[in-house]
């Protein structure tokens, strides 16, 4: 096993201020960035705050920005960097910082609460649901989301414009709207809830300019833009901008 000494810059501080701090730290074969952060904690900075849990890319806790790119620390191998490269690790830059690498991601929970949940179909009890695989393939892709919020962090709509946080739910939660709107048994429409319309009117779908950064950073490889956001935009067009669809619906309803 070979090892070397890597140079790191890690952001230390809190809401009152902070700075990048330099470290030299041992790196061994097969290690990931989170291992190095743990070694820093163990040997040089015992009070370094970092959020982590599974170390397997499934809990979505250790999101950070490594050399300026939103990534999971546990899924970023040290072997992708040059040995003489200085590696910079900062907290997510779209959310308020708590301390060191830990940010307050409460914005995302607020947005999650604003989306009406699955509406069970009338007359079917738990255990009675029957669905075809081809009907659930699309929502199942979105269920792979581990809620690391890297897509929310990288989306320039809120990252570069704090003032848009009120109006824009972000890619993760627009994807949630898409998931429910594509769910074969969701009965929201029967209760008068038009999810396609609310995506635009209440969750800020129009702010998305489909520049695909959410898809680029997704550690689960979910095609957020192509499979959730653009289909949602097309559904909004169906409802608001396509007179042919509007006319067709009118005629169908009358007959």
């Amino acid at each position, binding site marked *: 096993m070979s090892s070397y000494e890597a140079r790191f810059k890690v*952001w230390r*501080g809190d*809401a009152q*201020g*902070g*700075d*990048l701090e330099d470290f030299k730290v041992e790196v061994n074969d097969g290690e990931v960035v989170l291992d190095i952060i743990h070694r820093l904690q163990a040997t040089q900075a015992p009070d370094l705050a970092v959020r982590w849990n599974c170390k397997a890319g499934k809990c979505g806790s250790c999101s950070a*920005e490594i*050399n*300026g*790119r*939103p990534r999971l620390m546990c899924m970023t191998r040290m072997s992708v960097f040059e040995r003489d*490269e200085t590696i*910079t690790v*900062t*907290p997510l*830059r*779209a*959310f*308020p*910082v708590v301390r060191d690498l830990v*940010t307050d991601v409460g914005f995302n929970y607020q947005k999650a609460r604003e989306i009406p949940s699955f509406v069970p179909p009338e007359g079917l009890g738990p255990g009675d649901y029957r669905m*075809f695989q*081809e*009907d659930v*393939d699309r929502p199942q892709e979105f269920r792979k989301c581990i809620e690391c919020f890297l897509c929310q962090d*990288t989306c*320039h*709509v809120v*990252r*570069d*414009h*704090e*003032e848009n*946080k*009120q109006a824009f739910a972000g890619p993760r939660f627009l994807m949630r709207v898409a998931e429910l709107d594509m*769910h*074969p048994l969701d009965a929201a429409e029967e209760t008068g809830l038009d999810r396609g319309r609310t995506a635009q009117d209440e969750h*800020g779908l*129009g*702010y*998305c*300019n*489909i*520049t*695909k*950064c959410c898809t*680029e*950073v997704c550690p689960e490889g979910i095609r957020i833009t*192509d499979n959730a956001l*653009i*289909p949602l*935009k*097309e*559904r*909004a*067009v*169906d409802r*608001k*901008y396509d007179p042919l669809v509007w006319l067709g619906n009118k005629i169908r309803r009358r007959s």
Partner: protein
Amino acid sequence: MATGTEPQPVSGGVRTGTRAAIDAPHLRTDRWWLAPAATAAGLLAFVVYSTWRAFADADYYAAPYVSPFYSPCLAERCEPMRAGPNWEIFGGWWGISPAIIILIFPLGFRLTCYYYRKAYYRGFWASPPACAVAEPHKKYTGETRFPLILQNIHRYFFYAAILVAGILTYDTVLAFRDEHYAWGHMGLGTLVFLVNIVLIWAYTLSCHSCRHIVGGKLRHFSKHPVRYRMWQWVGKLNARHMQLAWASLLSVALADFYVYLVASGVFDDPRFF
């Protein structure tokens, strides 16, 4: 109830008060600028070339080939093309290049295309220039307001693009003639036209609006097996939408340039049979 005393949202980006205090607008160390710069350069080159050719109003027909920029030719001033796409809908009053009439449709299709939107928002408008690289604009409303809300008419341009692709297919069939209009011949130009039309169709059918219309709007694929199959097929093409967008942009420019070279007498079309 709004009382007017609610806290107003703070404006700003990555350097906003409560976020980690880092002065740099980004900390990326890779060559993040390369992709938007290359995209902008490629699109700009096409805009310059197509503007020159669209306004040139010359060298767009060399029997049996008609430039895709001038097809269909809808004004009286168009060069007569035997059995070709001459329809004088606009009559004699149209005083400038007839290419302008028809190019508005493919231009609108590509301008509102979901891939090209990404490309020019990043390449020309830096909104954002690259992922996690701060954009230079103070305000951002995306596609919620005029004029960008008009991006929602993409599907109408898709319908028009289907018609234009149909006419270019007709032109490709006509390219199986020789310069004396005799059928059953093929030259290098025929091959150029064939490649172009395949790429044009592939790009048009890989469109996100097409994917939605053929099946994406359905909630129960199991009740519509034919549309489900079509959706799957378009989905496979759609995964390559960016590559097809560039390939078809290049091929349509090349097909036009080939006609220009033959029509202006730079060389004769090599005939295979």
